[in-house]
């Protein structure tokens, strides 16, 4: 879904119950999204309903719905007139509600409060009471804890869940730092007591994650971002060694593509200024400073005088370039009529030697 950068809340149309598993990933996996190349400058926020406090979604949110209600998303950091948008992928899994139900008597556990011994004590000294004749109270199957299967291979996890007399259900693969096929989490979480035979949903890792966008990040920030996304920093290329801040201008694999967990992401730094450009800039700065000083010291700028040729009367007027808009001003003086009121007397003629 598209979330504008202008700070407006966007209704996702997703109704959630508190505790539902929720995943919000900025960007569409596999689809480069140049709108969010500077996503680190913004913060994606979520809100349940309209009255709850926003919660931080950030770059890649995985957790539970903090409250019940309709999920909305908004971008903090943009201004009302900020153009553009970012893409966010929302996925969720409804929470499994474990409701204790009255135990239903099973045939083998049918209490037989009226059971009588099949033999009288006097019939035979070797007679033993039948097991079925043992009086038993009302039997409720004991709840069992959900086993901890995070990190196990899917097959092993399923087997362990079955051994606990629970029913394993494998769900869509998700992003995580686990290797491919390893269980990332369960629902209910490990340790929760539930009835035997209940479903335990487990998610397994795809082994591939979406490569985060590192554009304009420093190496340090990029390292952190990569670690959060289960990648590592690869080679760092920087051909220029002088100048100011260093930011990432290229990366491989590209942002928003998928790559195997643990892949090394190589980056190329930019933003540094070559030495010769630095020198040129310094000289230019000195020249500009000199020009500014001259302009300040000059008593009054002489306005540019329009000039025109005797033949065409074309005037090259002054020019100005405000706000990056190219402008040009040209003046012509088109000749008009001349009307004499009577004769033009010639009082005297001279020929200069």
């Amino acid at each position, binding site marked *: 879904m598209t979330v504008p950068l202008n700070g407006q809340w966007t209704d996702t149309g997703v109704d959630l119950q508190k505790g539902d598993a929720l995943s919000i990933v900025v960007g569409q996996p596999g689809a480069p999204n140049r709108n969010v190349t500077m996503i680190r400058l913004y913060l994606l926020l979520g809100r349940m309903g309209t009255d709850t406090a926003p919660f931080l979604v950030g770059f890649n949110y995985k957790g539970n719905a903090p409250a019940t209600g309709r999920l909305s998303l908004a971008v903090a950091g943009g201004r009302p007139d900020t153009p553009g948008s970012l893409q966010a992928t929302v996925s969720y899994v409804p929470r499994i509600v474990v409701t204790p139900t009255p135990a239903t008597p099973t045939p083998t556990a049918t209490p037989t409060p009226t059971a009588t011994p099949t033999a009288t004590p006097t019939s035979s000294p070797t007679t033993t009471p039948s097991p079925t004749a043992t009086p038993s109270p009302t039997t409720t199957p004991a709840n069992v804890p959900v086993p901890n299967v995070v990190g196990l291979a899917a097959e092993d996890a399923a087997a362990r869940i079955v051994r606990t007399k629970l029913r394993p259900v494998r769900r869509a693969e998700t992003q995580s730092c686990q290797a491919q096929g390893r269980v990332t989490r369960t629902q209910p979480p490990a340790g929760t007591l539930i009835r035997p035979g209940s479903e335990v949903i487990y998610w397994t890792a795809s082994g591939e994650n979406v490569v985060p966008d590192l554009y304009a990040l420093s190496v340090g920030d990029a390292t952190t971002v990569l670690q959060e996304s289960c990648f590592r920093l690869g080679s760092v290329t920087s051909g220029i060694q002088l100048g100011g801040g260093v930011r990432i201008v290229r990366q491989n694999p590209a942002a928003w593509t998928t790559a195997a967990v643990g892949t090394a992401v190589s980056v190329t730094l930019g933003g540094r200024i070559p030495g010769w450009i630095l020198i040129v800039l310094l000289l230019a700065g000195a020249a500009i400073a000199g020009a500014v000083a001259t302009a300040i010291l000059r008593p009054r700028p002489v306005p540019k005088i329009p000039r025109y040729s*005797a033949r065409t009367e074309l*005037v090259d007027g002054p020019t100005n370039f405000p706000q990056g808009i190219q402008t040009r*001003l040209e003046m012509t*003086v*088109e000749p008009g009529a001349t009307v004499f009121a009577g004769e033009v*007397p010639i009082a*005297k003629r001279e020929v200069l030697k």
Partner: protein
Amino acid sequence: MSDQSGLTLRDLMPDAPQLGPTVIAALRQDPQKSTAMLGWETLGAQAADSVLNIDVLEALARGWSTAKELHEYTDASKHPNGERSVVYLGAHEFTKTVYPTLTVTITPFNPVRFRFTLDLSANMRSVALYILNGCITGVGMGDGSVSAQLKYDQLDLRKVESQNVQFPGRHDFTASGLQIG
């Protein structure tokens, strides 16, 4: 080309800074001229400067260059090439109209033209014209009075009554001067 003679329209209209707002007010009357208004708002100050810096003396000299009494100076048989003449004109009156036209180009819009009308009325007592090869090459030794009226479309922007002007010294036009005829 000519150098500035020292007598500009600004000298005749020292209180002309109202020029810009007046043009804006005129443009606001026509919604089709929104681009023109943008152009004027962007470069209006410089545009007004360009208009006010018009050389009045040169504009008047263009009027004198059309006087039939001077046509003989284009006849090389009467005034051979290289002959430097000074013609002293007596008292006379004339009006000279010129159209200062500003073309403002703001990318990516089409150029916008602002065509002004400047009417100069001269009542001269005397003036000396320097003539060479059928061209007025300079003006000097003159005095009289000049009035001016500047208009944009049908809108009167500014009108000044006659002001005395004097040309105590000689002012030469550079290059070949102003062609007579």
